[in-house]
């Protein structure tokens, strides 16, 4: 579900950065006790390691791995969980080139905010409210992971379509991505439930909800919903600016077919000068690269 830089527009990237920043600000203003901070770091590392463990999904022969948001929220609380997920996403983006730097705002929103600040308080908390039992833990995990992933996937669809880089229409994209994530969500939900069930058997005090039953404030939820509405408004504005993805993309790549004033740049490539232009550009780049290499060698002989 990691979005990459190439498929989003700067406007969407900037908007989502702002939204995620607001949510991170809310989370980081919480007073965490000294002990929670190292725990957040280690749990972030755990999510990484856990995602590398593949297991067999019965009757399909394929393999799956855990997702993070709900599991972390259940163990650390939603605020600490969002910060931890963010750390995981930043490291995945920098060290593994998984999801781009510009798309980070989108990714934090889709995978972090949606599950920690929407699915967790609305679903997980409410099911578990009457007291933590294993049955409730199972139901809460599966349901909230599925909903969290669906919301996240829907975020991917909205952000991608408003960016208008790919021509895939909204309906088709949603119809493609939502069912896939329903299946992924069911598997991730079951695994999260199994892991939390095990923790409940071994040391029930580690489940966050059993320590602090009423921590998540209604006010925070209001702020988040407000932010979500704002995003909706901003994104829909972008979407309405380019109602037809195809037309917009055509304009952007400057084909200029419908526009009489345009110098049709791409058509030029066919002419000799166009091909020459590309060739000269590439040669120039190679030349500059070669000179850079000489500089590097000189520098390292000197040192």
């Amino acid at each position, binding site marked *: 579900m990691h979005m990459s830089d*190439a498929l989003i527009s700067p406007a969407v990237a900037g908007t989502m950065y702002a939204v995620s920043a607001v949510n991170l600000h809310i989370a980081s203003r919480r007073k965490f006790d000294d002990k929670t901070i190292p725990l957040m770091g280690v749990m972030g590392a755990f999510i990484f390691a856990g995602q590398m463990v593949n*297991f067999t999904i019965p009757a399909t022969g394929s393999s799956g791995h855990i997702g993070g948001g709900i599991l972390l929220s259940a163990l650390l609380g939603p605020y600490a969980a969002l910060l931890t997920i963010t750390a995981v996403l930043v490291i995945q983006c920098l060290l593994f080139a998984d999801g781009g730097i510009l798309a980070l705002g989108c990714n934090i929103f889709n995978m972090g905010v949606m599950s920690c600040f929407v699915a967790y308080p609305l679903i997980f908390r409410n099911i578990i409210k009457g007291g933590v039992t294993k049955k409730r833990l199972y139901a809460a995990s599966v349901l909230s992971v599925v909903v969290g992933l669906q919301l996240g996937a829907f975020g991917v669809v909205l952000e*991608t379509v408003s960016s208008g880089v790919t021509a895939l229409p909204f309906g088709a994209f949603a119809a493609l991505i939502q069912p896939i994530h329903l299946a992924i969500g069911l598997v991730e939900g079951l695994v999260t439930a199994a892991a939390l069930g095990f923790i409940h058997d071994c040391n029930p005090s580690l489940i966050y909800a059993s320590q602090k039953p009423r921590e998540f404030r209604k006010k925070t939820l209001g702020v988040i919903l407000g932010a979500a509405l704002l995003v909706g408004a901003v994104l829909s504005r972008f979407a309405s600016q380019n109602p037809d993805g195809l037309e917009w993309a055509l304009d952007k790549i400057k084909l200029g077919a419908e526009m009489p004033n345009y110098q049709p740049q791409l058509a030029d490539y066919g002419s000799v000068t166009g091909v020459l232009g590309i060739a000269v550009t590439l040669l120039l780049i190679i030349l500059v690269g070669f000179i850079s290499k000489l500089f590097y060698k000189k520098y390292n002989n000197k040192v």
Partner: protein
Amino acid sequence: MKLLFARYLAQSVENLSLGSSPVHRVHPTAKLVVTLLYLFAVVSLQNIGVLLPFFIYPAVLMNLSGSPYRLLFSRVLIALPFPLFGGIFNLFIMKEPVYIGAFAVTTGLISFISIMIKTILSVTAVLILIATTSFVDIMYSLRKFPNVICIVFMLTYRYLWILLDETAQMYTAYMLRSPEKSIKFGDIGSFLGQLILRSFAHASRIYAAMKCRGFNGAYTALCRKKFGAYDFLYVIIWAFLIVFLREARFA
């Protein structure tokens, strides 16, 4: 095995940041700023002709920093599938023909190529940043962020390797006793649960160790580099070139 492969992947590029070159010397903040500027420029463009000259950035920096081509290219390949998925539909949806000289191609093909070029450029830019700047240094440029965020970033990064090793040990132990090819679905709950319990135990030991060394909840960063004229020049030159390439629209 996936765990060790992940470790190799992350460390292979990151270890390059220990090298020395004119690019390694630049202050981490300067490199971060230039990378972001470059990414914004690349992402905001669609025209292949304007995108092509942007290859000058990886061409200069990869050579100037002495990064091995093959390693970086292999990492770019890993990042390709998602944009490929997003772009491939353009091929089937946008069917209007465009004539390039004597050849007829569809607009979908052109936009597909442009998405692929953008992917390669943006992923390479991030890889170059990581190959020339250590994660600790990048965190140093983000030290103005809230305290908790910085510490959690640093700790997650630091304990990543330890937990990966620990998971690999548990996995090996499981596989040695199991006839299956990978972990059975019924066992995954207790496997991950064990790992969580171990993580909690780790965290409490780490907390004790940090407390002993005077941890008071504040993020202390160490970076010996100072932002000097050299770094300033680096930002100015690249910023000028990027804006020029974006606005001049030659080629």
